[in-house]
């Protein structure tokens, strides 16, 4: 056999035996390293997924979403909604633009969600992901079609394009093109299927199952021509070679040409600033997923934030570096055990280069095992990570690059991590070693201390972050929000009952458990029906600027059912016929409009007038991130949600009785319900996810830090074993030795606390500033996190310190 090969085999053989001999150290070394690798791998998958959004469109480099930027006294708000004629104007006025398309996913116009059934069947199914779209949208995105002609699938009025998944659901094993779907039992307006498209990939910022055509649609007379209402997301495709930046510079013309004349026509006097305050820009479609955090969108679930990618990437790099340094520390910590072997080998004539090779082989062996374990660990943890990051990542076992990448990474990292230990260990001088004067590593512990401080700083920041997020969460869930969210059942999709919804309400009231019932789509939960209106004191249209706010259609029992509080005036009453022209407003509206005597005051929007009969105490109807905005409520019919306030606590049984009532009204439609308190909690799912991510990383950081600390305490005990023995000979107690060894590390942890506290305070304060309603950060979080870190550190060091304290005094002197 070749000499070199024999040597290499010999290296690995020794490495393997040492691995088996030092079981504790080997498992910590491999365990810590593979944990780091697993975390890195998962985060890489996450980042890869995040960066792959909207890369699948054939013309992705020419596709842009149009963005509006409004500058109101220095505060810039960005939006994606444009007036209906915007798209056509862009195409007509700018030759650089090849094609345009529009979406309107707004609930207000019947998109968003609906009860859906086949034209030839009775049974309704609740569906979401419904939007209005242009044929132009299909053209510029080049949405791949399973059935139908992509060129004209949405070209005709009343056509619909559905996803493959939904085609399989409603029309299994058939080509549904030309068949009809009925939405919300509206048989007067059936939709003809123009095509079946492939599902949008999970890495698309757009995610729809039903595209309703905009051809021939006008939501109110003149709607398609007005520049005064903005409801359309507008996309463009540039001609090849066109320059987006140059095009943006020409957009102010749009405002001059269309917006300002419309404003003047509507009676606005002061229009000079409009051109200065508004701006139209283009956002590349590939930027949408990660760079839209500051853009207002309607209920997009697919929005992420480039900052998260950076944060995750930094954490991955951090974990890998720390794990690598731990690896090095553990290798050198056990150096004294290897010193004799090194000395002997040198006496027997080994070159230093052979020793370096030997130790590198050892390190690569450890690294390879760690990668194998890490890969397995990542695969096992992937489902958990998916929940954590709200992703549906798949482990890339089948990808050709996985094994080669992992193998070369194992080689490179094993080599790098082994470099220092191998040169350090191979530097032992044979005479010193054999005489017993083993150099036990440099005494300057500066870098190692810095490492501990660094690790614990990061851990404490994450611990503090976790505490604060959970406290804010708790605060949100227990805050007085102005309405009673408990014991309220929400039955959804009731608009399909048509006129019978009122009888349904009456029937429900017969149930003994029911306290009250209200019919209204407008509920104080984010994502429920919303609108926007400008209000004025009656007759002040031209003189005063509008107060913008919500206008909610409710019924007589709404305030009672949701447990809201009337602070002035009265609730709506069945006895008062005049209440059809009455309104209840919230305190925010009273304040913003400056109404001194709100009761009896007259207000109006552009087409309706009300007399205020009551003021309701401010209640939160958006997330606590936002201020409570003005709103008025009047009597009206908005029948898609029925809210039921319940007396009894036995909810399952009650839901049963409600279901049977429902069944007698809508035998072809499954009942769909939720509880108000659950919906409320769901609004803060992102906070909960943030909390879970933080606690997971905190735990990971603490584990990694502890492994490092463990290695270091082992190193230190080894380095100081002679000193410890001398002290024991001179009569030191076990406790004094324990204290001696522990206090140094505690100092480091305390330094970490001092560094971490202001950093954590600053970062979490920034996070909390997203919330209009938030907790204040108390000192006790730092105290608790500090105590936690100290306790964890002491426990980690204890193993080594206690061992040292119970050492026989002669043990450390034997080498002499």
């Amino acid at each position: 056999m070749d000499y070199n090969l024999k040597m290499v085999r010999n290296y690995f053989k020794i490495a393997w035996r040492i691995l088996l001999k030092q079981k504790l150290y080997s498992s910590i070394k491999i365990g810590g390293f593979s944990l780091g690798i697993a975390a890195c791998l998962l985060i890489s998958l996450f980042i890869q997924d995040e960066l792959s959004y909207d890369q699948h469109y054939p013309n992705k480099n020419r596709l842009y979403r149009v963005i509006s930027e409004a500058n109101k006294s220095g505060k810039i708000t960005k939006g994606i909604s444009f007036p209906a004629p915007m798209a056509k104007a862009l195409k007509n006025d700018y030759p650089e633009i090849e094609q345009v398309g529009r979406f309107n996913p707004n609930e207000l116009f019947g998109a968003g969600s609906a009860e859906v059934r086949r034209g030839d069947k009775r049974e309704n199914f609740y569906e979401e992901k419904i939007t209005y779209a242009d044929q132009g949208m299909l053209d510029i995105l080049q949405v791949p079609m399973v059935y139908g002609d992509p060129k004209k699938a949405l070209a005709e009025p009343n056509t619909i394009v559905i996803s493959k998944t939904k085609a399989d659901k409603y029309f299994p094993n058939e080509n549904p093109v030309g068949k009809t779907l009925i939405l919300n039992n509206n048989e007067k307006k059936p939709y003809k299927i123009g095509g079946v498209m492939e599902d949008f990939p999970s890495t698309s910022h757009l995610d729809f199952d039903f595209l309703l055509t905009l051809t021939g649609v006008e939501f109110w007379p003149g709607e398609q021509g007005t520049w005064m209402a903005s409801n359309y997301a507008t996309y463009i495709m540039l001609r090849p070679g066109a320059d987006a930046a140059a095009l943006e510079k020409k957009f102010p013309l749009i405002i001059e040409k269309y917006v300002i004349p419309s404003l003047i026509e509507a009676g606005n006097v002061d229009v000079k600033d409009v051109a200065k305050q508004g701006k139209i820009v283009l956002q590349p479609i590939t930027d949408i997923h990660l760079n839209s955090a500051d853009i207002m969108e309607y209920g997009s679930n697919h929005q992420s934030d480039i900052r998260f990618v950076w944060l995750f990437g930094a954490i991955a790099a951090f974990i890998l570096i720390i794990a690598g340094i731990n690896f090095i520390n553990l290798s050198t910590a056990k150096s004294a055990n290897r010193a004799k072997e090194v000395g002997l080998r040198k006496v027997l004539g080994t070159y230093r280069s052979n020793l370096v090779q030997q130790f590198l082989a050892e390190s690569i062996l450890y690294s390879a095992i760690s990668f194998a374990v890490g890969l397995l660990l990542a695969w096992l943890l992937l489902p958990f990570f998916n929940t954590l990051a709200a992703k549906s990542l798949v482990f890339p076992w089948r990808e050709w690059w996985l094994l080669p990448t992992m193998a070369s990474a194992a080689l490179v990292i094993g080599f790098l991590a082994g470099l220092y230990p191998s040169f350090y260990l191979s530097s032992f001088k044979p005479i010193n070693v054999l005489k017993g004067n083993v150099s036990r590593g440099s005494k300057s512990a500066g870098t190692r201390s810095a490492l501990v401080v660094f690790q614990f700083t990061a851990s404490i920041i994450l611990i503090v972050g976790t505490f604060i997020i959970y406290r804010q969460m708790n605060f949100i869930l227990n805050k007085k929000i102005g309405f009673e969210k408990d014991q309220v059942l929400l039955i959804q999709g009731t608009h399909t009952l048509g006129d019978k919804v009122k009888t349904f309400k009456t029937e429900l009231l017969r149930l003994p458990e029911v306290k009250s019932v209200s019919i209204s789509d407008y509920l104080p939960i984010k994502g429920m029906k919303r609108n926007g209106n400008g209000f004025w004191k009656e007759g002040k249209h031209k003189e005063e600027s509008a107060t913008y706010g919500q206008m909610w259609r409710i019924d007589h029992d709404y305030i009672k059912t949701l447990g809201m509080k009337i602070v002035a005036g009265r609730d709506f009453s069945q006895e008062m016929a005049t209440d059809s022209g009455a309104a209840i407003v919230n305190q925010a509206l009273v304040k913003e409009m400056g109404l001194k005597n709100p009761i009896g005051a007259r207000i109006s929007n552009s087409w309706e007038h009300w007399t205020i009969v009551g003021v309701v105490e401010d209640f939160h109807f958006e997330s606590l991130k936002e201020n409570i905005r003005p709103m008025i409520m009047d009597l009206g019919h908005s029948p898609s949600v029925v809210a039921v306030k319940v007396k009894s606590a036995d909810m399952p049984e009650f839901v049963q009785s409600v279901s049977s009532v429902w069944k007698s009204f809508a035998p072809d439609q499954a009942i769909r319900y939720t509880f108000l308190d659950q919906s409320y909690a769901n609004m803060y799912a992102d906070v909960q996810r943030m909390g879970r991510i933080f606690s997971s990383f905190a735990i990971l950081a603490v584990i990694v830090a502890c492994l490092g600390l463990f290695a270091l305490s082992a190193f230190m005990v080894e380095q100081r074993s002679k000193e410890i023995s001398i002290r024991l000979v001179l009569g030191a107690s076990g406790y004094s030795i324990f204290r001696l060894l522990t206090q140094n590390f505690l100092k480091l942890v305390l330094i970490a606390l001092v560094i971490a506290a202001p950093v954590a305070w600053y970062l979490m304060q920034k996070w909390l500033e997203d919330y209009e309603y938030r907790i204040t950060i108390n000192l006790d979080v730092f105290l608790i996190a500090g105590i936690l870190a100290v306790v964890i550190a002491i426990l980690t060091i204890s193993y080594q310190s206690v061992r040292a304290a119970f050492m026989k005094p002669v043990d450390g002197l034997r080498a002499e």
Partner: protein
Amino acid sequence: MIKIENLEKVYRTEEVETKALNKVSLEVNEGEFVAIMGPSGCGKSTLLNILGLLDEPDGGSFKFLGTEIAKFNERNRADLRKRNIGFVFQSFNLIDELTVFENVELPLIYLGVGASERKEKVEKVLEKMQIMHRRNHFPQQLSGGQQQRVAVARAVINNPKLILADEPTGNLDSANGNEVMELLTELNEAGTTVIMVTHSEHDARYAHRVIRLLDGEVVMENVREQFTV
């Protein structure tokens, strides 16, 4: 002062059993100066470690100041040790990170002596050992002879009844070695019992009595009426 009978110490590995001490009996009276001699591996250091309460015997009886201590636990041994025994080692065993003053002070700290009293005592013993001028130096800055004088100073700081010296001159040249032997003799004449392990016949001549060990057993005891340098 010390009376051991049939003392045994066995070292075990998985397969081999080595008897380091095999039924050793001896007696040391207060005020004696005893040298233990013998070839490498004869059990000298093991015996010294047991006499110094650093290690426990596996069998036999060990009476120290009239108390049977063979079965004492480490805590009790440590207690007895720090009050009664001072150690001098071949390789000095000073703590590198501490100054001369701090090294000598250490036993007093473990005895719970107050700071001002410690300072007074340490300065006194450093004067006596003539290394007061080196009080703020670290061990590595001293010569071997000076280091051993610091070690002797540390051994006597708490006025022990017994001093155990393990090859105290092994790392020193003859001039420094003699100086250390003179020191031990002075201490002995002042009433301290001294037990010393040595290879050197020259050093052994300072002792009243020489105990020779071979393969873990006492083979000879010579008593000297008079010793000559």
